[in-house]
């Protein structure tokens, strides 16, 4: 049986083009998408395009939902509490749509803003994922592209190393 040591190889590649070629070769050799991680100091459109089709409108709906949550909170804070307090208004209406509407408007925006932050942190895996090792981190900061690949077998490791060697990559 093949050796099932699971190992992660990280290659530091000079250019995004070479990184793209290397990842294409890795896919051709049978490596799964989930086993390959590309890391860079600036956005690489070629690697990002697959996510455009995956998240059509989902985030927008969540943000709109956050806005509704903000609106509900605003109504609860203003209308409900003002009525419950029994505000003395000298016969004037306790609830005036124009005035309370402004606070609802602001808290809709606040709800949407906070929802955007939360879903971004969650979906991007921030706070959950480990940062790269210091050597890889430095290389990425200097403008290189890091390609990390999970190698479940010794054979896959050799294949990955050969592909990276072709790109002139430094492997960790």
């Amino acid at each position, binding site marked *: 049986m093949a050796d099932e040591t699971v190992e992660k190889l990280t290659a530091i590649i000079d*250019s*995004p*083009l070479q990184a*793209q070629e290397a990842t294409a070769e890795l896919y051709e050799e049978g490596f799964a998408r989930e086993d390959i*991680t*590309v*890391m*860079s*100091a*600036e*956005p*690489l*459109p*070629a*690697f*990002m395009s*697959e*996510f*455009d089709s995956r998240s059509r409108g989902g*985030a*927008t709906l969540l*943000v709109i939902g956050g806005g509704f949550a903000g609106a509900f909170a605003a109504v609860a*804070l203003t209308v409900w509490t*003002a009525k419950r*307090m029994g*505000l003395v208004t000298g016969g004037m209406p306790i609830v*005036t749509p124009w*005035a309370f509407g*402004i*606070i609802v408007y*602001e*808290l809709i*925006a*606040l709800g*949407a*803003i*906070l929802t*955007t*932050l939360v*879903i971004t*942190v969650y*979906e*991007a*895996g*921030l*706070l*959950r*994922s*480990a*940062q*790269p090792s*210091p050597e890889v*981190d*430095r290389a*990425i*900061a*200097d*403008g*290189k*592209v890091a390609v990390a690949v999970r190698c479940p077998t010794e054979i896959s490791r050799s294949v990955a190393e050969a592909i990276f060697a072709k790109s002139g990559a430094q492997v960790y």
Partner: protein
Amino acid sequence: MIAGGMNDAASINTDLLRSVFRTGKWWYLTVLIAGSVMLAAGAAFLYQAYVGIAVAGINRPVYWAFYITNFVFWIGISHAGTLISAILRVTGAEWRRPITRCAEAITVFALMIGALFPIIHLGRPWLFYWLVPYPSERGLWPNFRSPLAWDFFAINTYLTGSIIYLYLPLIPDLAMLRAKSKGIRRRIYSLLSLGWSGTPLQWHRLERAVRIMAVIIIPVAVSVHTIVSWDFAMAIQPMWHSTIFGPYFVVGAIFSGIAALIVAMAILRKVFHLEAYLKPVHFNNLGLLLLTMSLLWFYFTFSEYLTGYYGNEPAEMQIFWSKVSGPYSPLFWAMVVCCFIIPVPILAFKKLRTITGTLIASTGIVIGMWLERFLIIVPTLAAPRLTFNWGHYRPTWVEILITIGTVAYFIFLYAVFTKLFPIVAVWEYKEGIRPPHTSMEPTQSEATAAVSAD
């Protein structure tokens, strides 16, 4: 990634991270002076809190003066970030890239400072928490029908949104700083970068979040200064109760915001040697925006005063003449000179619309817009409808020192920010200068060479 020459990643990193990793003597001097002035202003505030609000010049009938002028002024300055970063991002103006962070930082700091003034203005500032809506034995509850309560929600929403809008695009640069730092600094940047590693998924989600935030923050910014204007317009005071105040204040805010941004950019460019990044084209483009806003501002101001003059209502005319030819006329005409007479010729002619020219125009505009806020507030209060109640206003050293102190506070915050974070968004800048053929598609020659090799 960006091949060779001046634009290679290493030289960009060196240039843009220089301010973070190297500290010149001017930085220490700036922080020392700004910090000293801040402390003096803080002492003035404590003196006011201890002795009483009477040490400020505000009294009946002029119960809003310097502090509220500063409040409106700083909230106005905060519109810089929203316009430059958000609106230009939404419209796809690529030239915005080196200046977005500068603008977003101005927004956050200006808002923080502006929001201080309602508390500075309190006679008993240590009781500010009484304004917070929680059930208590006092039986008080906020008056949600008051524009001041709307201010609270609007400014806090805008401040929260602006902080997040500044922070999100900062994350990749924080990761870069993490990689290049050591010791405690590295730990702090690690914490702030939230484990960012720059995977395509993270980039995609970040860019999506920034796009969404840009769309949300624009109406919030418009609403904030509209609501601030309603602090005045909702009161039935002569020359305040005007339907035009909402858009007038928003235009004025954007106007002063762009001017403040140009001043900040000119200083940063000089101090941090960012000539290759903050180029004449940026000042030229901002100058054109400033020209547009100057003309718009003049149009609104002219409409406002013409409407009052034509109505000839006695209470309004009293205030009108006090500004145009009375005791406030020097300030009024100084405002017109600073906001229109000087800037428009400078900004209208390309030969004059240089970095120096736009800086001169912008400095004048910042001063002129402060005067504008003062002239909206004080003359109206000094001459209310009932003549027995007319009064006058003279600022005291306490108000003047606190006003200067907030400018120093802004400079201090900005100096500290440039020490901790790159003032030009490194990744955004690099993304903007990436040549088209390195967007990962092979060039025609590379494809032909590959076929020939086979």
